[in-house]
């Protein structure tokens, strides 16, 4: 029995939820980044699932997955650079300690 599409979607949804929970509740900046990575992967899983089940001939889905991958990589690089700088300046990576943009 082949796995139905909804299974993949459910997994992706669960991953997405875990990622959102992580982003909102984690205090460490690195943990926030990791949760963001999970969200992105959930979205990529969703994309690939829809491609495979709905329109396997069209390679647009694969390309979109590659785009998401690239964006995740770039974002990770930039995010880690920012975290390192923040740590150098503030000696902390707790996000609630870095609130100087307070309005």
């Amino acid at each position: 029995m082949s796995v139905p599409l909804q299974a993949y979607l459910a997994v992706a949804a669960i991953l997405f939820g875990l990622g959102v929970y992580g982003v909102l509740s984690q205090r460490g900046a690195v943990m926030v980044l990791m949760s963001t990575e999970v969200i992105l992967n959930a979205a990529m899983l969703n994309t690939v699932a829809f491609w495979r089940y709905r329109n396997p001939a069209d390679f647009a889905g694969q390309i979109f997955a590659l785009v998401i991958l690239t964006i995740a990589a770039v974002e990770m690089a930039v995010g880690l650079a920012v975290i390192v700088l923040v740590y150098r300046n503030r000696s902390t990576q707790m996000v609630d300690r870095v609130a100087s943009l307070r309005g």
Partner: protein
Amino acid sequence: MSALWLVPLVPLLAAIVIATLSGRVSSPSGAGFLATGAALVSSAMAAAVALQGTAGSVLRATLTTVSLAGHPLTLGLQADSLSATLALLVAAISATILAYSVWYMRDEPSPARFFAVMSLFGAAMLTLVLADNYILLYVAWEIVGVCSYLLIGHHWRERTALSAALKALLVTRIGDVGLLLGIACLFAAAGTVSYQPLLTSVSNGMIHGPLVAAGAWLIIAGALGKSAQAPLHVWLPDAMAGPTPVSALIHSATMVAAGMYLVARSYPLFVAAPAALNAWFIVTALTACGAAVAAAAQRDVKRVLAYSTMSQLGEMGMAIGAGAPAAGMVHLVAHATFKALLFLSAGIATKASGTNELTELHDVPRIASAGFLVGALSLSGIPPFAGFWSKTAMTAGTSQFAGVVFLALAPVSAFYIARPFFIAFRRPIRQDDSEALTRVVPVLVLAAATASVGFAPALFIPAWSAPPTSLTAVDVRTWLDVAGALIGWAVAFGLYERRAPLLIAAANRVTFVGTWARSGFGVDAFANAVAALVRTFSAVTSRLDVAAFDRMIATAARAGSRRLSGTPAFDRAIGMEVLAGSRRLSRFDVDVFDRAARRTASFTLSMAGLIGRADDQLLDQNIERGAVGIGGVGARVGALQTGRVYHYLFAVFAWIAVVTLSVVVAVRVWR
């Protein structure tokens, strides 16, 4: 015709040379001699031009042509009989007065600057009379005004001189702006500003309409300002704060006559706008009479001459207004000679005594006394002096009514000039130390001129009008005028020389003159109403004590009225009430017009301050309050920014959720 350009160019070059080399010119006299020399050269050229011009031809020289919206503007000089005569007059009188100034300015500050500006003035004035179009005239007109400002304020360390200079420039500027608008109207109507095409088209009736009439009225405004006629006359008496040569050259012989020249030159325009011409006549007649009475009451010899100038200019204006512009110009020439002579003589006397007060002038040198006498006789119209011939021309060429006014003015004019003669110049002293030649010669030259100029009528025949002066023009009216003048002399003689008790008693009976002067003129009530209106506005708007401007004019006016009020010793000693009337008239002039001018000035300043504060409070502060309000809103919204990343992310996700749900619901509903 390049020689024509040299006439104004030579004094201009002299001015530039003096201004740039003033440090290196060896002595102040050097500057003076340079200026005088330039003026003499200019006169020679002007004479050459004049002699050629009287043959009936017109010399021209073009400077430049500017094309303005398809209308070519050709700016240049022309020398018809009128221009040539006036150019010669201006140049010659300049030369005479500049020679005199070499002596006068010996012990005055900044003589180099004086001579530079006087030369510049000469150049501008020559350009004014030689211009062949209104724009060049206007340019010269303004430059002449600026020179007058600089020269009145020559003693810039004195407050009176400064405020007088400012007042002069400001009041004449009011007229000048009117003139500018008038030229704009004429240009808009006719497409040209050159005299000949413009005035010819107006005479032919090719150009007519409201713009032309407006041009005529506005030209009158300009002439009123420059020639110190009512209501723009308040600056001339105060302008006497300048050195005497300045008063002689600018404020009697030349610049103030520019207004009269303008009206005479534009005469065809006024023929086409008779209402304007009549108004001109009325205003100048009123000024002539009022100023004559005021002149009889002055304590300061220069102010007597200033009011006299005003009155004589009024007579010129009357002649033009009554249909004899050529006669007016003849009087302009004659007036220049005798008025300059009077001023130079007065200058010698005031230098010797150190004051301008008539009663305090003593040790008057003989040359001054003689000069003053000749000038006074000429002014009164006693034959054979120049004034007699010009008065003849004016009475002969004008209407009956004008003739009556001239007749009435004759004794008053004679009186007001005989009075200072008898008070101050009657008993000269003998000065045997070798006085400067430059003091004596100019006076002699002018005396000769005023004595003889009447005998050369050929010079005064402008090509465009019938010759007014000839022995055949002398008739009954002329002799009546002479008789009136003699009466004036006799009265002055009796009052001041002989102290005849009969005359004094009669004078004391004539106090009603004072009352009449005060109320019957009618202008009184109107002027008081205007003053009251201005006062109401001043009271309503807040008083802003800005500037020396208000204080300066107030100081000058106070200084002026102080000279008129009070009872000095000689008045009490002689006990003359007849002067009270005329004194009240001149005080009226100072009070009403001067105060109106002062109040207008302070009103304008108050309005300026009010508008400034309104600008700040109404506009600026409200806008700033609005900005602060926006800032407050911004601050409150800014409180939403906690700085914590997870709050922001929560908001993002919440928003996404909301949007997604709404999309799903919307799709469902739509389906």
